[in-house]
């Protein structure tokens, strides 16, 4: 037990100013900088090229998404979740709709859950591809980024076929999917699963044994496992340090307990380990998608049972008076979940994405909190950066895998 009366608080002014000595240079990296993945700003104190201190300044992309969530009806907020982490929009949708479904006490039918899993894993692949491309680009491997974006197009094509949008998909709906799955979609996904392992092999050929890549990533940015836990890291940042925490395994949502997959864990906790872990995660995602495609029923409902919480099927709205009324009320007034508060987390491609919703029984969430993994993971940057070289900073930003839309919300 720590005796708090004994611990001396750090003197704030010293921390904040960190007055550079004459040998040191304060470099303001960002918010407009090619490798800060958006509008991250970092105040670096450099001695030569060695980083003495690093202070991330965020908030340049703050749009008040939580405040907006507290002024929109439950279903109206789904498109906003796309805009938090815009490279992995379906996963954000998923986290939100699962939280709302938990609040309402409903669950999507089996077939919809399988398709949600497929889409979530495809999202993970798309997000990891963006990560790999930009991470490699930061370190200077130009071509990998173009290869990954080439393959990401295939995933976006699948999204487009599925819901008509490519980036901000607004794909999941509360209760399941209200539209039928396009009949050619399973074959598209299968085709992609056949192709993609070769693509992963191509990236690995370019990077995994490349001596310059090894020199840039091995032993850089080590986070010890206990430090990782203490910082509250999740996702590949935590698993790269060897701690086994994957929400899909630890507290399975959807039907993740019905598919077999392994959670890759790193053995050293450095940038290279996180790279290996994410590459392996991509392989495991393909495994999950293949199993889902085998198990998913070809026919069956995609929307939850008819309750006040879900939008009635489109066909019925046009044919039955009752559903038309329900539809009218659902659209105009929204629905009122019971009073209460829920927290639901999903394994986003960056870590644990949690939605904490407090409901006061009105159609508008009383409090909507997004626990974004990027925000928490980014905190470990100063820890990793101290004593690193300037060039390592870009590798470290890359390895945390942030999207500023999700950090700033």
């Amino acid at each position, binding site marked *: 037990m720590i005796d708090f009366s004994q611990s001396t608080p750090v003197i704030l002014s010293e921390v904040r100013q960190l007055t550079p000595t004459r040998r040191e240079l304060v470099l*303001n990296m960002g918010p407009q900088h090619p490798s800060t993945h958006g509008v991250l700003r970092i105040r670096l104190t450099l001695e030569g*090229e060695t980083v003495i201190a690093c202070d991330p300044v965020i908030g340049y992309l703050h749009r008040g998404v939580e405040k907006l969530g507290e002024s929109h009806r439950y279903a109206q907020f789904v498109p906003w979740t796309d805009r938090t982490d815009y490279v992995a929009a379906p996963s954000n949708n998923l986290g939100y709709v699962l939280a709302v479904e938990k609040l309402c006490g409903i669950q999507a039918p089996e077939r919809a859950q399988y398709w949600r899993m497929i889409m979530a894993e495809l999202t993970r692949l798309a997000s990891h591809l963006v990560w790999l491309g930009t991470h*490699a680009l930061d370190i*200077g*491997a130009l071509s990998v980024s173009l290869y990954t974006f080439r393959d990401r197009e295939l995933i976006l094509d699948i999204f487009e076929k599925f819901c008509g949008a490519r980036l901000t998909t607004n794909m999941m709906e509360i209760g399941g999917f209200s539209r039928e799955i396009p009949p050619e979609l399973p074959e598209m996904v299968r085709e992609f699963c056949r192709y993609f392992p070769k693509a992963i092999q191509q990236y690995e050929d370019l990077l995994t044994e*490349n001596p310059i890549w090894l*020199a*840039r990533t091995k032993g850089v940015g080590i986070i010890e496992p206990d430090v990782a836990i203490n910082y509250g890291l999740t996702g590949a940042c935590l698993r790269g340090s060897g701690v086994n925490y994957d929400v899909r395994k630890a507290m399975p949502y959807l039907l993740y307990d019905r598919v077999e997959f392994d959670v890759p864990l790193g053995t050293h906790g450095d940038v290279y380990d996180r790279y290996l872990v994410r590459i392996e995660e991509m392989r495991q995602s393909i495994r999950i998608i293949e199993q889902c495609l085998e198990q998913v029923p070809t026919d069956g409902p995609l929307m939850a049972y008819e309750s006040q919480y879900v939008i009635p099927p489109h066909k019925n709205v046009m044919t039955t008076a009752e559903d038309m009324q329900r539809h009218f009320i659902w659209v105009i007034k929204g629905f009122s979940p019971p009073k209460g508060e829920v927290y639901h987390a999903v394994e986003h491609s960056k870590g644990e994405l949690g939605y904490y919703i407090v409901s006061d029984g009105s159609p508008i969430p009383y409090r909507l909190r997004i626990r974004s993994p990027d925000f928490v993971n980014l905190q470990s940057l100063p820890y990793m950066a101290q004593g690193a*070289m*300037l060039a390592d900073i870009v590798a470290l930003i890359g390895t945390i895998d942030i999207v500023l839309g999700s950090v700033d919300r």
Partner: protein
Amino acid sequence: MDWQRLLVSYFVGFVLLNVLLGLMAYMTWFERRVLARMQHRVGPNRTGPFGLLQPIADGIKLLAKEDIVPANADRLVFLVAPLLSFALAPLGAAVIPFGESLHLFGLEIPLLVADINVAVLYVLALGSIGVYGIILGGYASGNRYSLLGALRSTAQVISYELVLGLSLVGVFILAGSFSLQDILREQQRVLVIGPLTLPNWYILSQPLAFALFLIAAVAETNRAPFDLPEAETELVAGYFTEYSGFRFSFYFLAEYINMIVVSLLAGTLFVGGIDGPFADGVWWLALKALFFLFFYVWLRATLPRFRYDQLMGLAWKVLLPLALLNIGLTGLVRLWGIGAL
């Protein structure tokens, strides 16, 4: 003073300069096309057939842009630095022999601008002054990224210049001269080893020196994977972050001209220059230089970037000892053994 020879020299130099500038423009096109092919892209293909007019369009665009001088820049130095870089770049080509003399209108026109008997050292000296364009540009911008880029560049160029120079010492020992003409003449001899008849190219007798020269030349011209001074992901654009318009394009031109000059030099020093099967001539040199240029682009498409300390460590801990070893070995061989070669 022989006015006639001087005029001929000027004329050849003028032609060479223009050819070099044209080549430079198409080098950018070549790089973009090759890089695009390697990355599953198309590359510039809209301006003219195969995008061949793209360099001209780029040039016009750059010339038409505003020339911005930052408020806290050291104005005079800021304006002069890119000119320095640009002016020094093509000078290196002056000593490269492009073939035997031509006889035209009763005049003997040598296909090189100046036959200096310390030609290789002259090229090295140009490289060492060329760094001023970078360091002064970085300093004068009044920008910390530029300053860091300039510092990196200075340290890098000094270190790799050392490697570059030392890697050539083996060639000097074998050729017994600093003159490119003499080195070329040496290489045009035929080497007979048992049943094999080989050209006496120094890539065969000095493979280590060739490898070192190639690595150091990539670093000297600030190209990937040694493009740290302008590492865009760390330093935005390094020393030319603040430059725009045609001053920016001067740095750009200088970099590409340097690449071409270094490729020509590598072709002349190690693989026999204009020497080749069937018929000697400038086309062989062009082909060899093109191969080296392709190699540059290939490297850029394949390799990540070194970190600064790794780069310096490579120069001082690996390449420099190897270069010294090469000198020692070559000296010993020359002293004791195979003087017959």
